[in-house]
Structure formats: structure tokens, C-alpha cells
């Protein structure tokens, strides 16, 4: 397959780009009601927390069904969150989370 899938990539891009662009390009966002702007300000914390929680707590179980999973990765993410809340240092939090996971896996704990 030499370039056969470029058209597929274009089609996938065509359905992805509007999701990224339409709200950014929509005119008059500054004229939205204050309640809507307040809602939009809360989307960031909500969606970031949802991304983290779903990514670390939901895995694909038998038959592809989503399944709850609590493991060392969950602990690592909680440690990273605590470190960032305490020290405001993203790099330190993520580095310690990775170190915890590597340690747990290399010692057979996880």
C-alpha cells in the first residue's frame, strides 16, 4: 500500500478538524451570556480530570468491555496530583509518578 490510505487520512482529518475549529472560529463568542462563559471556564478542569481518571481507571476487559482497574498507575497519578497541588511543579510530579510505576513493575508489585 503506497499512499493508498492518504485519502482515508484526509477523510479522518475532515471529520476531526471541525471539532477543533468551529468553537474557535465561531463569531460572537464574546457576546455569549455570562453563565455560558462561566460554564466554558469550567470545561478545562472537568475535561482534564475526566481524561486523567478515565485513562487510568478504565481499561478494556474481556470482549472489549470497559472495566474498572485500580492499580499502581492510579496511585502514581494521585501522587503526581498531590505533588503538583503542593509544589506547583508539573515535571516533578510526572517524574515521580513514572518512577513509582517503573519501581512497582520492576519489583513485581504491579
Amino acid at each position, binding site marked *: 500500500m503506497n499512499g493508498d490510505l492518504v485519502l482515508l487520512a484526509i477523510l479522518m482529518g475532515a*471529520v476531526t478538524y471541525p471539532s477543533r475549529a468551529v468553537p474557535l472560529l465561531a463569531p460572537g463568542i464574546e457576546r455569549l451570556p455570562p453563565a455560558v462563559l462561566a460554564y466554558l*471556564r*469550567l470545561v478545562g478542569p472537568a475535561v*482534564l480530570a475526566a*481524561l*486523567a481518571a478515565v485513562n*487510568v481507571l478504565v481499561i478494556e476487559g474481556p470482549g472489549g468491555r*470497559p472495566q474498572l482497574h485500580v492499580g499502581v498507575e492510579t496511585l502514581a497519578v494521585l501522587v503526581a496530583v498531590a505533588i503538583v497541588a503542593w509544589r506547583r511543579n508539573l515535571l516533578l510530579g510526572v517524574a515521580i509518578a513514572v518512577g513509582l510505576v*517503573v519501581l512497582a513493575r520492576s519489583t513485581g508489585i504491579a
Partner: protein
Amino acid sequence: MSVAAAAFGVVYGLAARGAGFSLVDAMAMSLIVFAGASQFAAVGFVAQGMPWIAIVGFTFLLNARHVLYSAALAPWLQRKPRPERAAIAHVLTDESFALSLAHFGRIGRADVPGYWVAAAFIWLPWQAATVAGWLGGQLMPDPTALGLDVVFPAAMGALAVAVITGRRELAAAIGGAIVGVAAALLTSTSIGIIAGGLIGPAIGLAIPRRGSDATTPDDAPSLDGHDESIGVAP
């Protein structure tokens, strides 16, 4: 996050080659779609012989969460030129959204050069790693053995903390996480993330506002856009 993007980009390139993608095909996905989860899914679907219409439909659903990112950034970027916003949209990912929103919130205004720095730190490694993975990914150790699979959730959780400035943001984050996981368990991970991102803010708005809370209707960000580099970590 750049290291994680590079590691998984290598895996993507390797997987794409295994599924029969040419280097041009694999790069077209990374350049045009630039959305890791849907690219990985597409590789699997193509390998299974799934019809293109189904792949495109699944891509739409998987990437629909970007609407929330775009809507959340729109008030910050409303006065930027339309072509610039159109370009910004193409490189809007989980990571560039998280980094830029935390950064804008920290400095109290939009910072377009900072956004481009954040996006470049994901875009460049992803593109380079796609090529590297396609050419020689079998030489790379499994990213999970290096703990790189935890970088993404740890960084997203940490950046959620970085954008919490009051009780409403805290309630939105906790609500988003709980709703997201519950909805993901009942449906799928992509729907769970969208549900958490949609319902979490409503939970936050239900919390009575206090004077110290930053999320008020009239604390709209200033929009001057001076240069300042991304600096979530002090």
C-alpha cells in the same frame, strides 16, 4: 510529555507498518489527523479490514471531545486573527489544550506564542517518531516497561490541578472525573470523557460562588497576547 509523545509515536509508526501502511500513509495520518488515539484505532481497523465509512465515523466520535477544548479556549483567543485561530485549531490536542489553558490561567491572559511552543513540543516529536517507528520501531523497548504509559494521565491530572482556582473548578474537576469514569464504564472511554467534560462544569456551576473564587462571569481573561513561554512548573 514530549518524551511520551515520541515513545508512542514510535509505537504508532511500528504498528502502522505492521498493518500495511506505507510511510506516506503513516505520515499522512500524523500530519493531517494528528490525534493519537484515533490514529491507533485506525491502524487496528485497517488491519481488520473495517470499511472506511466506519473508520471515519469512529474517528469523529473519538475526536468529538476537541469541541470542548476549542470552546474553552475560544474566550481567550476571540480577538486573534481568524487565520491564526484556524491554524491553532489544527494542532489542538489533549496536551496542547491542557498546557495552554493552565498557562493562560496562570498569567491571566492569552499567550499565542506560548500556545505554539506547547503544540510544537507535541507535534514535532509525534511526526519524527512516526518516521522513526515506521523505519525501526522494533528496536525500541516497550514504552510501558519505561513507565511512559503513566505520563499522559499523570500530566492531565496534574494540569487539572493547575487550572483549579476555586471551589467551582474543584467541583467541576471532581464531578468530571466521577461522571467520566461512570459513563466510560457504561459506554466507552471516548463517551466517558465527553460526558465528564460536559457534566462536570454543570456540577461546578451548582456550587455557590465565593468572593475568592476566580471563576466568575466577569473575570474574563485579558487578551493582549504578549510573549511569554509556557511555564506550568515554576
